[in-house]
């Protein structure tokens, strides 16, 4: 009887914990949607901000965030997938690969503000890019590299070893075997994990704060070496630095809602991609 009771208690405790996690997320989303929705109008999405963001829209911030994310993808995706390919398919497993993996895991745990500082030191100052899209994108790329590498490695390892052996035994070179019988089945998984990392990059504030973001710009950027506005930074300024922070609440919530939808949209794309390919390939 007693064992049955404690089993029961633990079951409900675990269940309560799980529900409370959902509860927290539901509350955050609910709060942002309820308070942010009234701010969402076409002009909010399509106009430049006026009166320091108290009026007008957030169009340049949306554009800026998209630029930064796309730039980070272009840099980080090939680098990350390439390293994962090297680590799983080519490198002799041993002390060196262990060291690399340890470094990657450590890199994944480095706080984002440290990446910001790194980007400031290396890209903004040392390379002389100044506060610019290129500096910000490269900084974000560094930040999401570990996620891309780790998830790509997992996807590659999930491809059965027999497929590699079968190709090699038919006289395929290593690259032919990878290209024809590993990558087609691994790429969806590699992309999925990578997109989740990119979603995180879209919402980061600290790295772009130090490397690219401006609070207000009258024009959209014209080159890679221009600064941009960005959603997280815009939100940060509106919420903490604005002289009328209390009065611009609906602008803050509106910005938060747009950012949230953007990130959730990216994640949703990842999930859909994964389920589509799961149906396609089974063994």
């Amino acid at each position, binding site marked *: 009887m007693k064992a049955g009771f404690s089993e029961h208690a633990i079951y409900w405790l675990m269940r309560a914990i799980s529900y409370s996690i959902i509860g927290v997320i539901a509350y955050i989303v609910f709060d942002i949607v309820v308070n942010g929705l009234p701010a969402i109008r076409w002009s909010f999405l399509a106009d430049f901000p006026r009166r320091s963001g108290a009026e007008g829209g957030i169009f340049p911030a949306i554009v800026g965030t998209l630029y930064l994310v796309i730039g980070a993808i272009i840099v980080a995706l090939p680098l990350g997938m390439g390293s994962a390919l090297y680590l799983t398919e080519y490198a*002799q*497993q*041993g002390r060196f690969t262990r060291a690399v993996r340890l470094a990657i895991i450590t890199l994944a745990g480095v706080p984002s503000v440290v990446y910001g500082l790194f980007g400031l030191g290396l890209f903004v100052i040392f390379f002389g890019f100044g506060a610019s899209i290129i500096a910000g994108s490269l900084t974000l790329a560094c930040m999401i590299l570990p996620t891309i590498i780790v998830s790509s490695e997992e996807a590659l390892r999930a491809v*059965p070893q*027999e*497929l*590699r*052996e*079968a*190709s*090699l*035994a*038919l*006289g*395929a*070179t290593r690259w*032919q075997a990878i290209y*024809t*019988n590993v990558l087609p*089945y691994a790429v969806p998984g590699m992309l999925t994990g990578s997109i989740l990392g990119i979603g995180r990059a879209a919402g980061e504030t600290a790295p772009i704060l130090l490397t690219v973001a401006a609070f207000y710009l009258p024009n959209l950027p014209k080159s890679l070496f221009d600064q941009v506005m960005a959603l997280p930074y815009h939100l940060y300024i509106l919420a903490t630095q604005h002289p009328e922070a209390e009065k611009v609440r609906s602008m803050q919530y509106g910005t938060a809602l747009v950012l949230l939808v953007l990130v959730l949209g990216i994640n949703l794309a990842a999930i859909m991609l994964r389920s589509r390919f799961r149906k396609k*390939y*089974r*063994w």
Partner: protein
Amino acid sequence: MVEPINGENRHEVKVRVENLDFYYGPVQALFGITLDIPARQVTALIGPSGCGKSTFLRTLNRMNDIIAGARIEGKITIDGMDIYRDGSDVVSLRKMVGMVFQKSNPFPKSVFDNVAYGPRIHGIGDRARLEEIVERSLVRAGLWEEVRDRLDQSALALSGGQQQRLCIARALAVDPHILLMDEPASALDPRSTARIEDLIGELRREYTIVIVTHNMQQAARVSDYTGFFYEGRLVEFGPTQQIFTTPREKQTEDYITGRFG
């Protein structure tokens, strides 16, 4: 030259193995293997699990190369060519030495694309030629009649026995001289096993076949020569009939009479 079977002509040597030692890192798995594998004959390798017969088989097409820390000493020549010499071409070696694995491993592609895979990676792109190769290989593997109407269907939809014959067809499609088979029927039901054994019988005079099996009846049924491996050593090698009726070594006799293993 290999010892003749019952007064038949002597067979030319296809693969010559001399003093082969093999190591997985610090662990030695094969000890001083020396044998001549006759051309266009079926050679069976028997022995208890972990005796090194599969490891030995995989040294013949250098599949052990992909294992980290694997190391080899000694010499293996095929048609007189040292396959481990510096600068030797693994790709053309594996083209010449086909392999069929224990677990059938068709690619998750169509039947056609499975068989055409080898020719394609070796540069054959002409559709008509590929079709001809695919048909010929499937006919040889005894699978053509069963799959001729569903060449574009997924190979994974075939039965286990059909998948294994597809893997044989896939190996034949690159025109190997030698066919290595690593317990090709151990995961199959008796009927499919019998079909694979019949197939080996049909292929035996065209290819040099080396088959690893833990099934001694199978070795006795399909092979011309048999080698008995025990604890990384080749205990005895000779014509199958002699190994099974009058083995020279006590260990061989104990194993084939079921006293251990």
